[in-house]
């Protein structure tokens, strides 16, 4: 476990994740208070990565549950293996007859069978799904419940038992209590508002787009082969794009994709043609592309005049000297 916030920052850093103190504090608190963390923020700011890195830096297993509309208990928690149960009953038919030897009347036979029925509803026939796995694991694990906002409201309610008491109930068997309380990270893109009950049980962390310096640091870390000048230009452009009113604002992952693409093309510095060709790595909608192009042209024009401007004044100075 983490000993201090600096420790969190440091061990995340080792796994190529730049955690601000704000993020690190929440993670530290979550580990110390044994509380789930609800991470919100726009798409592509590293919410899912946070859980992955947390697992990696604690050297724990990551169990992931991807939420989607229509996700139910059967897919998230456990399911009875009906086919297996059926198969076993078929094979054990003779044994069943044996058990029933000596019974007189239907009532007695049913009683006899009933006394044995836990055989068929035991853990043997349970197919554990991610949540069950996380609860019954012998070692502590990191449980990532990804994009909880995509799941239905009922599923959210169903999670409450798990999140507050770290236990799940299987009606036929009983309650499973976590052997080691897992670290739970829930992520949400805010497609809908989470219920207050869920929020109450979690620590809340809002991750926003990084500022210029942070983003630059992330690029240096993740794409070390990118040219320094290119990285700076890309960050400038992306930061200014985020100020536009786009349908899908580019996240860090898009920035990284773009830098990688440009680096593969062996680019040292941005220019008009290149931007047009590679723009679709950061902007994903037709309308957005149009808007972004205008903004970029403007940006490049400014950059150029700045450059030529300084050259021009430089040369005029030379002239003065010559005269």
């Amino acid at each position: 476990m983490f000993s201090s916030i600096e420790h969190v920052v440091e061990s995340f850093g080792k796994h190529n994740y730049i955690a601000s103190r704000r993020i690190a504090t929440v993670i530290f608190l979550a580990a110390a208070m044994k509380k789930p963390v609800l991470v919100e923020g726009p798409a592509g700011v590293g919410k899912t990565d946070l859980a992955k890195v947390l697992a990696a830096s604690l050297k724990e297993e990551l169990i992931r549950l991807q939420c989607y509309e229509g996700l139910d208990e059967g897919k998230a928690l456990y399911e009875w293996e009906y086919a297996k149960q059926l198969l076993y009953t078929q094979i054990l038919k003779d044994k069943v007859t044996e058990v029933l030897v000596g019974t007189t009347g239907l009532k007695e036979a049913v009683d006899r069978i009933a006394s044995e029925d836990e055989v068929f509803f035991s853990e043997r026939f349970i197919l554990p799904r991610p949540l069950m796995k996380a609860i019954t694991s012998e070692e502590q694990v990191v449980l990532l419940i990804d994009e909880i906002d995509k799941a239905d409201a009922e599923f959210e309610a169903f999670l409450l038992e798990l999140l507050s008491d770290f236990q799940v109930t299987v009606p036929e068997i009983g309650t499973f209590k976590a052997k080691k309380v897992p670290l739970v990270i829930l992520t949400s893109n805010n497609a809908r508002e989470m219920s207050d009950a869920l929020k109450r049980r979690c620590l809340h962390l809002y991750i926003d787009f990084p500022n210029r310096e942070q983003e630059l640091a992330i690029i240096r870390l993740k794409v070390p082969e990118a040219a320094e000048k290119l990285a700076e230009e890309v960050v400038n452009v992306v930061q200014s794009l985020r100020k536009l009113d786009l349908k899908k604002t580019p996240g860090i992952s898009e920035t990284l994709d773009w830098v990688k693409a440009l680096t593969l093309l062996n680019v040292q510095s941005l220019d008009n043609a290149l931007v047009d060709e590679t723009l679709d790595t950061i902007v994903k909608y037709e309308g957005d592309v149009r808007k972004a192009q205008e903004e970029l042209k403007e940006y490049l024009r400014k950059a150029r005049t700045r450059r030529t401007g300084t050259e021009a004044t430089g040369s005029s100075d030379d002239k003065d000297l010559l005269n």
Partner: protein
Amino acid sequence: MEDKLVEFANLLRQNGIRVSLAETLDAVAASEVTGLGERELFRAGLRATMIKRASELPVFEELFEVFFSGLGEIIKGASKEVQDALSMSDKDFQQFLDDMDEMLKKHGEELSELAKNLLQNNNGQLERMMRAAARAVRMQGIQRTIEENYFARALARALGFDKIEQEIKELREQLDKLDLGPGMKAKMEEYLDRRLKMLEDIIRKYVRQEREKRDMKAREEQRMNQLGDKSFYYLSDQELEKMREAVTRLAQRLKNIIAVRRKRMKKGRFDVKRTLRANMANGGVPFHLKFERRKREKPQILIMCDVSDSVRNASRFMLQFVYSLQDLYSRVRSFVFVADVGEVTESFRTNDVKEALDVALKGDIINVYAHSDFGRSFRNFVTDHIGAVNKRTTVIILGDARNNYNLPHDWCLREIRQRARRVIWLNPESRNTWGFGDSEMERYAIHCDLVEECRNLNQLYRVIDQLVPR
């Protein structure tokens, strides 16, 4: 510390942030983990446990600043001022305080606690006493600027300001008797005076701060509520912007509600075929039951918006609202009219709402500066676009029905109604003006299934809520 956190939670609640008891307990637990030593750490702990919506973060930051440094900061600042006024370095000041302490010990055993804390620069103790006094006079109830004076006086009384005034006076008299150097005596006197003045200052500033703390959010909230009831006619540019956000939020809320409504009716009849297929693996024993999915009945919507000057704002929000919800309908077609009618469906499909609104209202499609002519618009609609209306279409007309004494052509509306599922007329004028002057509302109302007043956001919301499929 718990008391203080509970108070902070109360303050957050007063400012419209919902903090439950469990969350307050979490905050206490978090503060035990983070400790109080490092301010940012402590703040992060509270932020993570008490604030669960990104939109509430700015309010939290502001309140944290005010609450957790507020009084302490004021006292510290005032104390520093005293030191500066006497123009002493930290070391000199400490020395001076020690001298003072000694002198007090010799002569002033009977000094009150407040006086001691004040004169010996015990800022922490002083803060504690002020808070206790503030609680005693129920300062958390302060709301208005005019109450400031009252609370300042009450607080001074609770602290025992009269007494301390008296004490300091006596101290000064005693100074005369003492054999101090002339420089020292002057300094002492000045110090005493300044301290007394400082206490007064602190009280005043503290009261003001408390009032501001409570006031801030209340005003903001009031403004938002008013926005809902504010007529579309009178909106400043800034309010237009705010209104746009409000519409987006309302639309989102409606979507959430509808998602729940939908869920309830999702399951239909038992589906034999799919059940058999799903249970093949179990030898045909039906463990998993499958149900038919009920078909969603999505209505088609056709909006006709009057975009003449008088009702433009109402039209703007109506269009924005409907388009924010467009995936709830199987089809949305929109027309704008003033003296002629034009279709703007296409621009809404390809652009985002904001741009499309601009296109619709700018006048590229029809002349928006003409005089309203409902009759002509309706007649043109019937000749050119009547095909857009069928048995599943709900036609919504938004306009004030002020026809400038032109021919009303209300038969056109009858024609539309015969083909449509229903016709709804929304009028952004208040109901009691309908039918007066050039308003043809009563003539048109005969041919509508529903006529509603729609002057502000709340009314608009209610209308839209009726329109969405259940």
